[in-house]
């Protein structure tokens, strides 16, 4: 008799778009070791995509994955992990989207979909109850994500869940993302363009099968504890009533905004007054949740007056406030909603699309470029109509937009004229976050393997001002709650890197975790949910160790594919030279010497080599990743001996 597995549908769907062949693999081949979601996706990527395969090569994989808790009643288990080679950095890529797609995939009888190859003409994939079909997408190629979803729901049925790309993905724009439910983005890493390069417009899913857990009654007890923890938490109550964007006030107070392309980190107070979270209330018609999410950080908006009358859209994360509000100096709330809706429709990621646009606004401010470069457009901070024009130009690669479509690093190589000084990126991917005022946050953002981003080790404990006692007890770092301090921050970042990987592997939202608020769920809580769901006993510490393995899989991918080194783990030069100009953290910058010391500590914790930043044999053997040590050795990129005493401050 077939052994029943719990928490999983048990099947991985593989599709080769070049020859249209499908195959099925057992999920347990990977999940026994790497839990699910990002863990499995990254392992497949490392093993199947070699360094000579470019991101847009048909042989690159794109992997859509769920976790063992996806589709169950554990809160906010709606996240879809997306893993592929990164179009911006050429290294590792990983993304994560909410909405209602991931649970539907599980109900349709698949835990993962692994796609390779390139279809001869545009296609979409239709998946339902254990079967998949590759279908002609000529009717929707060129259409927006909203039109695509409408079409597929009309064509198949209204319950179908869709992920799709817009024109940006089809045109291989670096900032192209994948859109789920018309509004939830699988952003960063240019994954919209990866789908576009495969001629894959969309995936539509409908499932009617059950997800089973090993010990239902005991599982529900753990689920209830988790719901209770969430319901009691002040931060969750704030997010539930005022939305994710309500965090913007703290971001301003802690000077972590990327104002006018990182020229400052604290926005003019009167401008923020015009875009306070409360101002958006008048357009909000309801909270709008991801699947089984009691937090509901998102809302649905409808504009009833003015030039954008009848604008309807789901929104929005705090990123909109960083990316288009602070970074482009836009203080008009309806314009911000319009920008969110436009990006969702065109399939553009807010973080990566705002980077090149803010950069050219600064170049214009400094006279480095003029209307001769910009197709006649005057770029004046805060002029949202021009921003929207540039967004469209980027998505369609028209005129000046063709340069913006390359991302800030590549675009600065095209424009030259010392413009790279203002091109703010990490390992080639545009930076989204303001980082100078909060050191632990900054370290986590900069060393993130996918090329910048706050969704790996970046800690909010400083911004949250947790107490010395809690900092000591949880992270062995009393200064964890002091955002200015470099002290012990490497430890906190190391901890969160492992921890966030757990949350991703399980398919849950970070907002349930103690990353969001120190009183929320920790490794032990997740371990209990996992154990009761799958019937496989695990402890929080064991989960953390698997989290560390995943960090090392990603690190190895970066080393093999791009050879990123210590110098790539430093912040953009500008943020080490120019201090914040205003606000409570005026004068703060990232000091090179202290950064270097923090990096040494961080590498030590990982047992990575301080001189190169590469992995050591010792580290990989201890983690049981001998295969990776062998691959690195073959490539001449394994450090066989540690050199703990090496002073490497001068090596960047």
């Amino acid at each position, binding site marked *: 008799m077939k052994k029943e597995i719990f928490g999983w549908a048990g099947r991985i769907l593989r599709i080769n778009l070049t020859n249209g062949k499908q195959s099925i693999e057992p999920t347990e081949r990977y999940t026994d070791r790497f839990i699910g979601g990002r863990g499995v996706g990254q392992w497949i990527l490392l093993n199947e995509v070699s360094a000579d395969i470019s991101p847009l090569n048909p042989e690159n994989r794109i992997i859509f994955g769920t976790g063992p808790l996806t589709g*169950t009643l554990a809160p906010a288990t709606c996240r879809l992990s997306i893993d592929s080679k990164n179009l911006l950095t050429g290294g590792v890529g990983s993304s994560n989207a909410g909405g209602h797609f991931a649970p539907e995939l599980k*109900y349709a009888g698949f835990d993962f979909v692994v796609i390779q190859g390139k279809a001869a003409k545009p296609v979409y994939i239709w998946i339902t109850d254990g079967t998949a079909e590759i279908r002609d997408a000529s009717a929707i190629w060129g259409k927006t994500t909203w039109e695509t*979803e409408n079409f597929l729901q009309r064509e198949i049925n209204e319950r179908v869940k869709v992920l799709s790309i817009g024109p940006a993905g089809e045109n291989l724009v670096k900032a192209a993302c994948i859109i789920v439910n018309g509004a939830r983005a699988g952003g960063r890493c240019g994954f919209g363009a990866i789908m576009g390069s495969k001629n894959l417009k969309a995936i539509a899913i409908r499932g*009617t*099968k059950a997800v*089973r857990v090993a010990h239902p009654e005991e599982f529900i007890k753990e689920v209830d504890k988790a719901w209770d923890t969430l319901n009691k938490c002040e931060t969750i109550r704030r997010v539930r009533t005022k939305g994710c964007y309500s965090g913007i006030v703290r971001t301003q107070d802690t000077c972590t905004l990327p104002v006018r392309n990182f020229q400052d980190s604290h926005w003019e107070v009167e401008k923020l007054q015009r875009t306070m979270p409360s101002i958006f209330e008048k357009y909000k018609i*309801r909270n709008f949740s991801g699947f089984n999410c009691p937090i*509901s950080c998102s809302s649905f*908006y*409808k504009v009833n007056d003015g030039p954008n009358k009848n604008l309807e859209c789901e929104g929005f994360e705090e990123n909109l406030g960083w990316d288009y509000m602070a970074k482009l100096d836009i203080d008009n709330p309806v314009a911000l909603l319009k920008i969110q809706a436009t990006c969702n429709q065109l399939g553009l990621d807010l973080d990566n699309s705002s980077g090149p646009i803010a950069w050219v606004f600064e170049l214009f401010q400094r006279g480095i470029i003029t209307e001769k470069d910009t197709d006649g457009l005057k770029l004046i901070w805060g002029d949202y109509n021009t921003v929207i024009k540039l967004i469209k130009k980027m998505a369609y690669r028209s005129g000046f937009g063709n340069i913006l479509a390359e991302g800030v690093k590549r675009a600065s190589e095209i424009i030259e004229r010392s413009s790279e000084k203002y091109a703010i990126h990490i390992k080639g991917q545009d930076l989204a976050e303001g980082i100078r005022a909060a050191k632990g946050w900054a370290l986590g953002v900069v060393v993130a393997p996918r090329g910048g981003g706050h969704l790996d080790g970046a800690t909010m404990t400083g911004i949250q001002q947790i107490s010395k006692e809690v900092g000591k007890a949880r992270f062995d770092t009393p200064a964890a709650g002091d955002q200015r301090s470099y002290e012990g921050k490497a430890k906190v970042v190391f901890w969160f890197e492992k921890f966030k990987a757990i949350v991703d592997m399980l398919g849950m939202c970070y907002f349930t975790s103690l990353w969001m608020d120190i009183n929320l769920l920790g490794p032990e809580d997740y371990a209990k949910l996992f154990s009761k769901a799958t019937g496989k006993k695990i402890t929080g510490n064991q989960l953390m160790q698997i989290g560390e393995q995943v960090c090392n899989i990603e690190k190895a991918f970066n080393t093999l594919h791009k050879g990123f080194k210590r110098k790539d783990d430093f912040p953009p030069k500008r943020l080490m030279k120019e201090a914040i100009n205003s606000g409570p953290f005026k004068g703060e910058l990232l000091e090179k010497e202290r950064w270097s010391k923090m990096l040494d500590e961080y590498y030590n914790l990982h047992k990575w080599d301080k001189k190169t930043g590469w992995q050591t044999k010792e580290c990989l053997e201890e983690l049981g990743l001998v295969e990776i040590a062998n691959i690195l050795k073959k490539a001449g990129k394994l450090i066989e001996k540690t050199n703990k005493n090496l002073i490497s401050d001068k090596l960047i």
Partner: protein
Amino acid sequence: MSINREKNRIYINLNKCTGCRSCEIACSYHFSKTFNPEISSISVIRNDRTGDIKISINSTCDFCKDEDKPLCMKYCVSQALSII
């Protein structure tokens, strides 16, 4: 409150509903100890273009007999579901 399964009804306040569908999977758990919206008595359909939500409860609903409280209601944190 104690529920009179003959007289009481579940009242749906759509304005409060977030479209999360926790009620659907809670209901399937009540019937099967598994998670599967397809077998639920309660059904939620979201329109992601307009933000509209449709909810219906069909005749298979047994008002969660054997449970202290209807499970759909227990997991509806936005209190869109109540007993009248």
